[in-house]
């Protein structure tokens, strides 16, 4: 085998470096597609999960009611229990550091001389404070992360301005972290304060966000947990690290599902590209391989040689693809982080590709290269038995052409219909991903299987059309497609997959955007919304604002109504949901089943709540049913007065409660935003509020701007769609290019005959490009139809299962048209290279004699 590598592969590489380069590029594109898509998913999901896990540190249990917080005094009660070694209150919030450009950082507040410092090794080892007495004595002291301090060139005694509950507050850097433990947990973007200082800054009073509990080494966790639950009497909930991770995952449930599905499409498309590329290289050397066999080299030796060569090429392609994929992922990750940042304290947009992604990409590259090599080898050097079987299969096919294809396609579509009809309300993460991938996979496979049949039909009809007209290229191009459609299966299937998935995402984006914008028009009845600067879309992670701000806004002359809104994360049946407390104002809330006027009184008196339709869908909640919510003073029951649509919050679901009730039960009077209605004639609410706005670092967003920002947010959330368009076009180009390179290599004799019979180089090139265009068009049409089918399934079945939302179905016409035309143009352009190659293959190839 070594001699084959040395005397055939190496000279071949020197003679035709372009062919090897093409293979490397093809494999690199496949690998890059996988690494980029899964890499973004890794970064979003794992960085959050790791952040949660590391933040918990060595603590065994976490006690908290989230959002509204728990009273620090509870820590003393917990510490007094048997089996508890220590308990420490923690502040864990997202804060805005103002400057030329506002930056969101994670603020951690811990008692620097309490149990946290005692039991958290990461904290002990990572924090370096120059003067501890000064640090603890001054409420403006802050420790900044080492990497951020380096980026911002911050040194000890420098100051930075942070948005506090009552406006901007200047803090002094009195320490810098070192080492990797905390940096890794918060992505290098965090501030650390002493607990009382942090509570003061955020207006928490005596509340903390949660209490971490360390147990004695010999304590039975379950026993202690039961004991603590008894002590808490429902004032707070207890979570272990596993539950915490599960909770984190549930918060970004929809993002994870969609990223997983995008990853699956990437792997499949990558598979097609890889397979196509390796097959091309092999087929182009068919003559050499057959000659070697004829000269006595065994089939096994030839296979070993080809496998080693493929693996070497795949390895090089993998290395290039990883670099490319990381670059793509770095570009597109910002959009995903911006999306998830509305719901989560996402520490950073740092790219974090997991080893498992590299593993999947490497296995895909190597296994597909090996698979394509083995299949190609079998085709080029069939055993006598295989030749007989192939001949018999060919004879059978004469009797019933494409019958199995039709049966397979019908079977696929019947299976999909059954899956859609039997779709459950929702499923846990992995079964849901499996369900959606299976359903969509079968749809796409069905259309992929149909592609050669459709191509054959188009080729034969096109041929009949072309022969009735003068000219040669069209006749030749249609004849090639119509008589040999099997050759384009892989190319066409890859294009179908890429276009279909792209269009499905387009449809999803459009449906979400149109449904949500119509919802905004209906629900955003105020003139403007006041939030902390840059936090219009923030819900769970929005900075708290003092209730004084609401009072000051209400006092303004231009303001007719100001409605304070508080968003906090609470538990409902063990899962996080968003509790939204709203002031009672003379403005109706749009409800699904009932009129606001009939429920207003009960709602205002705190007898009932409204739930979002996604929460109602998942938990089977209906109007009139009773739900129980954990509150600091114990569980409280509320009647569900109505349901409503809310397209700003997906996975967790929303419960709306009157703010008076919330303040009374949860003991929290802070707000996150204010909806403002101006007096008739008030021109610009922002101008009237400028003093308040400036003092508290707020911004006033007119509803028209809010509408635009929301539309922008949706587009940003699906920014990857543009990367998918790029991938679809690259797949079209690469697929058709490889397919035609094989075809041209197979047709040397044919081209020689054409040239000898007076067909010009230009006509041959036109014919080859025409064939490319036909393949591209067939695949683009099938891809569009498949994309439409996939869109219907995603929007009518998938979206309700994943988000609980019900969209109006929209299939935009322009983007599919653009993708369709783009794919055809790319496919047509891809025909140019084999076309030029075809021209070079003149009758001179028959030089012997």
């Amino acid at each position, binding site marked *: 085998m070594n001699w084959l590598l040395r005397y055939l592969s190496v000279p071949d590489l020197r003679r035709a470096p372009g062919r090897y380069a093409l293979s490397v590029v093809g494999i690199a594109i496949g690998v890059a597609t996988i690494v980029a898509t899964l890499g973004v998913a890794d970064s979003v999901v794992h960085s959050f999960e790791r952040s949660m896990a590391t933040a918990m540190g060595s603590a065994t249990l976490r006690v908290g009611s989230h959002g509204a917080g728990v009273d620090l005094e509870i820590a003393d009660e917990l510490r007094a229990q048997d089996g508890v070694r220590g308990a420490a209150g923690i502040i864990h919030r997202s804060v805005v550091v103002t400057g030329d450009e506002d930056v969101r950082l994670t603020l951690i507040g811990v008692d620097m001389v309490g149990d946290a410092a005692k039991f958290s090794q990461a904290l002990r080892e990572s924090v370096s404070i120059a003067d501890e007495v000064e640090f603890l004595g001054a409420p403006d002291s802050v420790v900044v992360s080492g990497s951020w301090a380096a980026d911002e060139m911050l040194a000890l005694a420098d100051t930075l301005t942070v948005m506090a509950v009552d406006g901007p507050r200047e803090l002094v850097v009195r320490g810098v972290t070192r080492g990797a433990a905390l940096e890794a947990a918060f992505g290098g973007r965090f501030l650390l304060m002493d607990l009382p200082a942090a509570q003061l800054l955020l207006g928490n009073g005596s509340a903390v966000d949660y209490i971490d509990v360390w147990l004695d080494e010999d304590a039975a966790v379950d026993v202690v947990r039961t004991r603590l639950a008894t002590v808490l009497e429902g004032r707070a909930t207890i979570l272990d690290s596993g539950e915490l991770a599960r909770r984190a995952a549930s918060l970004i449930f929809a993002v994870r599902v969609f990223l997983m599905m995008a990853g699956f499409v990437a792997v499949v498309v990558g598979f097609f590209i890889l397979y196509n590329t390796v097959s091309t290289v092999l087929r182009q050397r068919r003559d050499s391989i057959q000659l070697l066999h004829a000269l006595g080299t065994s089939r096994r030796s030839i296979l070993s040689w080809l496998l080693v060569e493929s693996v070497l090429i795949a390895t090089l392609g993998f290395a290039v693809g990883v670099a490319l994929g990381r670059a793509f992922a770095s570009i597109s990750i910002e959009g995903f982080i911006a999306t998830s940042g509305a719901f989560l304290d996402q520490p950073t947009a740092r790219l974090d590709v997991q080893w498992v992604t590299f593993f999947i990409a490497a296995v895909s590259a190597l296994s597909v290269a090996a698979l394509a090599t083995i299949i190609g080898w079998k085709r080029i050097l069939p055993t006598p038995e295989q030749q007989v079987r192939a001949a018999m299969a060919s004879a059978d096919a004469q009797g019933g052409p494409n019958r199995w294809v039709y049966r397979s396609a019908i079977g696929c579509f019947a299976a999909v219909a059954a899956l859609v009809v039997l779709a459950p309300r929702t499923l846990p993460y992995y079964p849901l991903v499996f369900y959606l991938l299976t359903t969509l996979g079968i749809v796409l496979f069905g259309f992929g299987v149909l592609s050669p049949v459709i191509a054959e039909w188009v080729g034969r009809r096109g041929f009949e059309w072309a022969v009735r007209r003068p000219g040669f290229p069209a006749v030749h191009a249609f004849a090639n497609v119509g008589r040999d459609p099997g050759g384009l299966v892989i190319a066409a299937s890859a294009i179908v997959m890429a276009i279909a998935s792209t269009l499905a995402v387009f449809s999803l984006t459009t449906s979400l955007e149109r449904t949500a914008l119509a919802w905004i028009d209906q629900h955003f009845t105020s003139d403007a919304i006041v939030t902390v600067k840059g936090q219009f879309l923030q819900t769970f992670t929005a900075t708290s604002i003092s209730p004084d701000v609401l009072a000051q806004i209400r006092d303004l002359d231009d303001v007719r109504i100001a409605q304070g809104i508080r968003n906090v994360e609470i538990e409902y049946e063990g899962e996080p949901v968003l509790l939204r407390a709203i002031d009672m104002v003379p403005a109706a809330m749009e409800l699904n089943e009932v009129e606001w006027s009939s429920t207003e009184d009960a709602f205002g008196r705190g007898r009932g709540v409204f739930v979002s339709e996604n929460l109602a869908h998942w938990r089977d909640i209906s109007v009139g049913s009773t739900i129980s919510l954990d509150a600091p003073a114990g569980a409280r029951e509320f009647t569900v007065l109505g349901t409503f649509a809310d397209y700003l919050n997906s996975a967790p679901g929303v419960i709306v409660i009157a703010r008076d009730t919330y303040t009374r039960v949860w003991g929290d009077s802070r707000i996150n935003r204010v909806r403002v209605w101006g007096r008739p004639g008030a021109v610009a609410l922002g101008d009237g509020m400028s003093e308040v706005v400036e003092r508290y670092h707020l911004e006033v967003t007119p509803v028209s701007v809010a509408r635009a920002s929301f539309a922008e947010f949706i587009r940003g959330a699906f920014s990857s769609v543009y990367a998918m368009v790029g991938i679809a076009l690259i797949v079209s180009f690469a697929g058709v290019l490889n397919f035609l390179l094989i075809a041209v290599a197979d047709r040397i004799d044919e081209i020689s*005959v054409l040239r000898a019979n*007076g067909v010009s180089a230009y006509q041959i090139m036109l014919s080859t490009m025409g064939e490319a265009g036909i393949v591209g068009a067939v695949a683009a049409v099938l891809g569009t139809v498949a994309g439409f089918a996939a869109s219907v399934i995603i929007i009518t079945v998938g979206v309700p299962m994943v988000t609980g939302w019900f969209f109006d179905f929209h299939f935009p016409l322009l983007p599919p048209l653009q993708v369709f035309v783009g794919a055809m143009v790319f496919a047509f352009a891809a025909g140019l290279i084999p076309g030029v190659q075809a021209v070079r293959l003149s*009758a001179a190839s028959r030089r012997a*004699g």
Partner: protein
Amino acid sequence: MTGTAEGIAELRDVHVTYPGRSEQVHALRGLSLTVRRGEFITVMGPSGSGKTTMLNLIAGLERPTSGSVCVNGQNMAKLNDTAASVIRRRDISYVFQFFNLLPRLPVGENVAIPLRADGIGVAEIRRRTRDVLEKVGLADRIDGFPDELSGGERQRVAIARALATNAGLILADEPTGNLDTRRGEEILNIFRDLVEGESRSIVLVTHDHRAAAYGDRMISLRDGQIADEVAGKHRGADVSDFPGAG
């Protein structure tokens, strides 16, 4: 059809050199040949003697390193691809030993290739295609595909293609090499009839001395030069002692 008084194709002191790994390969060394109208030339010679290169030069598929190749008075070496293609489709027809037909085109469309390439109207293409296939006895196979034909039938389709264009010059590269004796003779008789009945010119490359004997003139090539040339005693004469035969 135009051309010089001397011949439909003329090669003058033609040299063809290919770059080799260590030294240049001389395919033709100063070859001069005139193909006269209505003349049947057979060319013999061992492999590598330059037979196919000579045909490719006449067809304008290759260019000489030096010397000139004229077809109907036009120097093929100086024509661009489009102009050379026009001559190939109108004035020349090429018949190969093995692969003459495109497998994915029906027989009729295989015949029509040069006509379509020339932009001829569909009705005219149909008429000519039917006529020429009738002439070679394959009218009933017009919609069939090449893989349904025997070797001899495929060669007859290739000849029908030559008839369809009214090409004055037919270049045949071992057209009978793949056929049994009887079918080979059928093809050679068709060629002979084309020369005698329609004044077409034929340059036929062969290794078979019986096929060579069908020519009016027999040329033996060796090392890129004409080694010998004799007047033919066509229709089956014994030329076994001719250089290059057998």
